[in-house]
């Protein structure tokens, strides 16, 4: 289905925000200003945006340790996220969570998660809640090619099938779980979707570096799930442009691999080529988006640097609602 100019510009902008957010963090982390573990989403933007463009705030998603892209695509505030990553008390989680635990329940973003495989069962619960409410809403869990090996993921898929929960299992296969290749760790060599299929749900597969493939696939998937046909799964083949975490020497990569995937598998480059080639958008308007996004990220970093720091008293807050 042909997207409107507005929808195309919005999708491009969303992907660009994620890309520049991550590229900037990559630089900032090296200065030592940002604490903790940070896992960057660069390279996978088309998946987060191609999925989340179909959702509203009443649809829920649950993310992973590599969560910035999912958060941004689902509508989390750029400044609030940047402040959280900087550990400010003005951050989305008041500096308590940091990069791995960004959440915004009002946006239907049920949290990035530091425990690999924790998200899938939680998504099933959110989907069962949507089923009770009967408004055609869904819950989506993002999992990697590593997370798909957790028992929790298997249990969640079966539970979703037997309860006919409106849950979508999105598998982002970026070929690596930490330092291990998907060929080794996933017994059904390079094929995660077939596992989901074996649990009894309908599955799709698409190129996760092609926004249009993701977006179109998700249209079908969500029509299926929103119509009450139970859960579904999608495997997107994608790439991560940085290391597993910031500081990873990536010796497991092949010769020239990073250059090659940045050259041929970059979802932003592919999007631009496609829309300009088809005469849908011009380079100038895309360049204008680029410039605007860079300004927005710069402003977010400045705001994060200037934001209020937490204090010792804050440690004790928010363990309980009342105690």
């Amino acid at each position, binding site marked *: 289905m042909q997207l409107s100019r507005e929808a195309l510009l919005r999708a491009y902008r969303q992907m660009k925000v994620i890309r520049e957010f991550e590229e900037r963090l990559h630089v900032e982390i090296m200065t030592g200003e940002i604490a903790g573990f940070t896992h960057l989403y660069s390279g996978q933007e088309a998946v987060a945006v191609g999925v989340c463009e179909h959702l509203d705030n009443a649809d829920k998603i649950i993310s992973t340790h590599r969560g910035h892209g999912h958060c941004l695509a689902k509508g989390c505030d750029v400044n609030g996220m940047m402040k959280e990553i900087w550990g400010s008390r003005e951050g989305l989680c008041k500096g308590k969570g940091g990069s791995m*635990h960004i959440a915004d329940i009002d946006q239907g973003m049920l949290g990035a998660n530091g425990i690999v495989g924790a998200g899938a069962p939680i998504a099933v619960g959110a989907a069962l809640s949507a089923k009770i409410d009967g408004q055609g809403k869904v819950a989506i869990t993002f999992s990697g090619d590593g997370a798909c*090996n*957790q028992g929790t993921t298997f249990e969640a898929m079966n539970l979703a099938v037997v309860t006919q929960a409106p849950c979508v299992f999105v598998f982002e296969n970026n070929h690596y779980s930490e330092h291990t290749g998907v060929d080794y760790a996933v017994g059904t060599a390079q094929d995660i979707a077939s596992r989901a299929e074996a649990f009894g749900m309908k599955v799709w597969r698409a190129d996760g570096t092609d926004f249009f493939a993701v977006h179109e696939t998700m249209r079908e998937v969500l029509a299926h799930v929103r119509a009450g046909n139970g859960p579904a799964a999608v495997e997107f083949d994608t790439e991560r442009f940085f290391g597993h975490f910031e500081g990873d020497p990536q010796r497991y*990569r092949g010769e020239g691999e990073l250059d090659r995937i940045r050259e041929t598998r970059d979802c932003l480059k592919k999007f631009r080529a496609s829309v300009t080639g088809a005469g849908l958008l011009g380079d100038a308007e895309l360049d204008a988006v680029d410039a605007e996004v860079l300004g927005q990220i710069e402003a977010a970093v400045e705001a994060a640097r200037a934001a209020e720091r937490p204090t010792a008293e*804050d*440690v004790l807050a928010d363990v309980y609602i009342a105690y």
Partner: protein
Amino acid sequence: MSKMMYRDAVLSTIAEEMENDPSVVVLGEDVVGGMGTPGGPEAIGGIWSTSTGLFGKFGKDRVIDTPISESAIIGAAAGLALAGKRPIAELMFADFIGVSLDQIWNQIGKFRYMFGGKTRCPAVIRMAYGAGYNAAAQHSQSVHQILTGMPGLKVVMPSTPADVKGLLRTAIRDDDPVIFLEHKALYGVSGEVPDDPGFTIPFGHARLSRAGQDVTIVSSGLLLGFCEVVADKLAAEGIGCDVVDLRTTSPLDEETILDSVEVTGRLVVVDEAPPRCGLAADICALVAGKAFASLKAPPQAVTPPHTPIPFARELESAYLPSVDKIEAAVRKVLAWR
């Protein structure tokens, strides 16, 4: 003696035990690293460098790189152990016991008792624990409090490279299941380690790392070093501290603690785990129950508060026990009445 880092003491001990005993097997996520990648096996080992080179030396049947499946890793360790092997399973972060807890708690920890003493389950479960890296609530925890409460498990928390060597050897050779807790902040710390291949440290024997007559400070792991700093500072003022390094929290060396408190009459317990139902409370209760007459001041616990571990630098450092907090507690018991 040789100087080596804590992490190298882990690695060299595993390698030596694998050399000596063909039934010793290693398994865990990225213990080989690079499997199924263009870089190939061992392109990068595990993130703590505690299994580097084992795959090349001992091969894929004894060095098993696993998918991300903690429940199956620990369960497989249980099965390997019941079937006569000596598995050393690695959890990348101690926090991941959550995923595998049934296998640790209801299986490995209970086999011997439930089966009327008929089984052996010589599994070692190693894991990196502890805060200090702003890794937030799910990658920073100290879990000995939970695991020490589980009958059937032995729990070890070395604070020096030499103790790693002696205690890990004992752990691998022990016929019971052993939880071996390695503090992340200690991996890079160097110390003298005995070269004697017969060097072992028995479980349940605490180490007196500083000796004094005025206060007993009990700790383990990373915080032991903080207690030593406090003891050395107070020594310059003429105040003597016994610093007791527990080494193992299960079994617990009650005798060393009680003997010390009987002399000093003052107790400070320093622990990185949360305060409720924890190690510090346990030791304070032990002393209150068995050395009440010796006490000159109420025992003090220095622990984090009853909260998850926060992310931001300011929050994490406010959360954690520090040299200053330990010193304040010691001065408090000294100033009592």
